[in-house]
């Protein structure tokens, strides 16, 4: 430590007491509240600052998991958001994210208990991105930015503490996935050639909104040397098509396109719907291919029969199964295929304003 630093610390009469802070952090660990990382100990004044950002009643129930007999109200959500490191002004985004997530059938069902160990993908649109200092550019999947990092963590802490879903007990993830409770993308609307993602979820007019779904993992598609947009679509299609991820007759994947890929598609005259339709049309396998992977029961048709050896079974059938988001920096042509757990509700939630 330099002399200047020592003097600086000594001179700051109002500087917080690190020993006291450490005791408070350890106390939180001892209660079993932590996801493994340090928590911000929450006091009544901090809670009040969170509650002051919303017009909602602190007692309002904002989510329930019937199978475990637990629910969560605004007050408890606020305590968890504060513990996660959110600033009070993030709280309306946390509430919108949680509402969006609880619209997912998989989240209300057994998703949080699942051996798949799924993680939310949270997408933020609108002016709130700039107002709160979200990262909308490079490194979209993190880390390094407080709102992007703490808002999904808040959701994870609500699931742990308010719903009581603890690892090895009611949470039975076999391996889980990297980045669980850590992914909150602020869409790069400025460099997207298309409408904001929230519009696909029904929130129009440039209003701040949050969308969320559960995901199982993600895989990059690095394709930066071809001038032909169809080459890129085929490359993405190959990743979407990966057999290992297929367990049901239908699947869902989010395409988180980098600005360069998105702009290339748009320049070729493609809308989001065109990209989605490409995947719907092309992605799938023959019955024989499923059988070779021991998955002959996967290509089940609506009439209950299974695809024959030669028959091509499509794994996508509707645009809602292929949400398209634009995120990241315009510095390389690298996009991400995100595997959705269940299916996206297709509905986004406006960020509430204080009444």
């Amino acid at each position: 430590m330099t002399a200047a630093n020592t003097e600086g610390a000594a001179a700051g009469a109002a500087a917080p007491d690190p020993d006291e802070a450490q005791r408070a952090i350890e106390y939180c660990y001892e209660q079993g509240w932590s996801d493994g990382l340090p928590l911000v100990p929450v006091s009544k004044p901090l809670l009040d600052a969170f509650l002051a950002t919303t017009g909602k009643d602190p007692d309002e129930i904002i989510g329930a998991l019937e199978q475990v007999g637990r629910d969560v109200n605004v007050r408890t959500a606020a305590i968890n958001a504060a513990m996660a490191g959110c600033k009070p002004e993030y709280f309306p985004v946390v509430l919108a994210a949680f509402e969006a997530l609880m619209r997912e059938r998989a989240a209300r069902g057994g998703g949080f208990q699942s051996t798949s160990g799924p993680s939310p993908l949270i997408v933020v649109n609108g002016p709130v991105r700039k107002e709160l200092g979200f990262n909308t550019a490079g490194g979209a999947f993190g880390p390094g930015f407080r709102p992007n990092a703490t808002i999904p963590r808040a959701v994870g802490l609500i699931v742990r503490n308010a719903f009581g879903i603890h690892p090895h007990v009611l949470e039975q993830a076999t391996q889980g996935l990297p980045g669980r409770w850590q992914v909150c993308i602020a869409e790069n609307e400025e460099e997207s050639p298309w409408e904001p993602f929230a519009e696909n979820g029904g929130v129009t007019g440039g209003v701040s909104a949050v969308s969320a779904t559960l995901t199982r993992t993600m895989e990059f598609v690095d394709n930066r040397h071809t001038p032909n947009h169809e080459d890129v679509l085929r490359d993405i299609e190959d990743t979407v098509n990966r057999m290992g991820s297929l367990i049901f007759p239908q699947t869902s994947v989010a395409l988180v396109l980098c600005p360069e890929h998105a702009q290339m598609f748009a320049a070729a005259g493609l809308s989001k719907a065109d990209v989605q339709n490409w995947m719907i049309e092309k992605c799938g396998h023959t019955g024989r291919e499923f059988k070779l992977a021991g998955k002959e029961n996967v290509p089940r048709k609506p009439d209950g029969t299974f695809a024959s050896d030669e028959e091509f079974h499509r794994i996508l059938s509707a645009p809602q199964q292929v949400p398209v988001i634009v995120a990241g920096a315009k510095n390389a042509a690298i996009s991400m295929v995100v595997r959705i757990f269940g299916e996206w509700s297709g509905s986004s939630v406006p960020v509430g304003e204080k009444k």
Partner: protein
Amino acid sequence: MPNAILDPTGTVTNSAAKPAAPRAPRLASLDGKRVGLLINTKQNARPFLDEVGRLLEDRYGVTVTKRTKLNFAVPEPENVIKELVAENDVIITGVGDCGSCSAAATADGVVLEAAGVPVAAIITDSFIPTADAMAALRGAPGYKYATTAHPVAVLTEDKVKERAAQVLDDVVALLVEDSAKDEA
């Protein structure tokens, strides 16, 4: 006086404070009883429970009816529970071989027991902690169920039948009184 550190768990009523869920009285015998199979749709659950049912028909002359769970991940709704209780003397459910479905099998068991029907829930042994946690949440700490080795989903038809035969005594023991079991 410093501020207190606030608790993030909400209003948790711990299971000890909850009214205990009553367990159904055991039957004196399975002879001629109505056995309901609540099949949770997981891979091999149907052949597994079919075989359990068949063996019980042979051994005790029971009448077997089958029902498929609406959603393997969550407990059955109240109307289904009522019908199950009305139509059966005992219920066998499974196979709980995942995070949500093992917990749901136990939860169904606790609810059906409270409604007066003895239940044998079958889960794979990887999910004992989550089954126990769910039972405690439902006011039935220490709730008893039958286990079979994990995994079940990859077993061939013959192996599934073997497993069903192996678990049969445990299933019967969960459904009848101790004395009746000794005589069997």
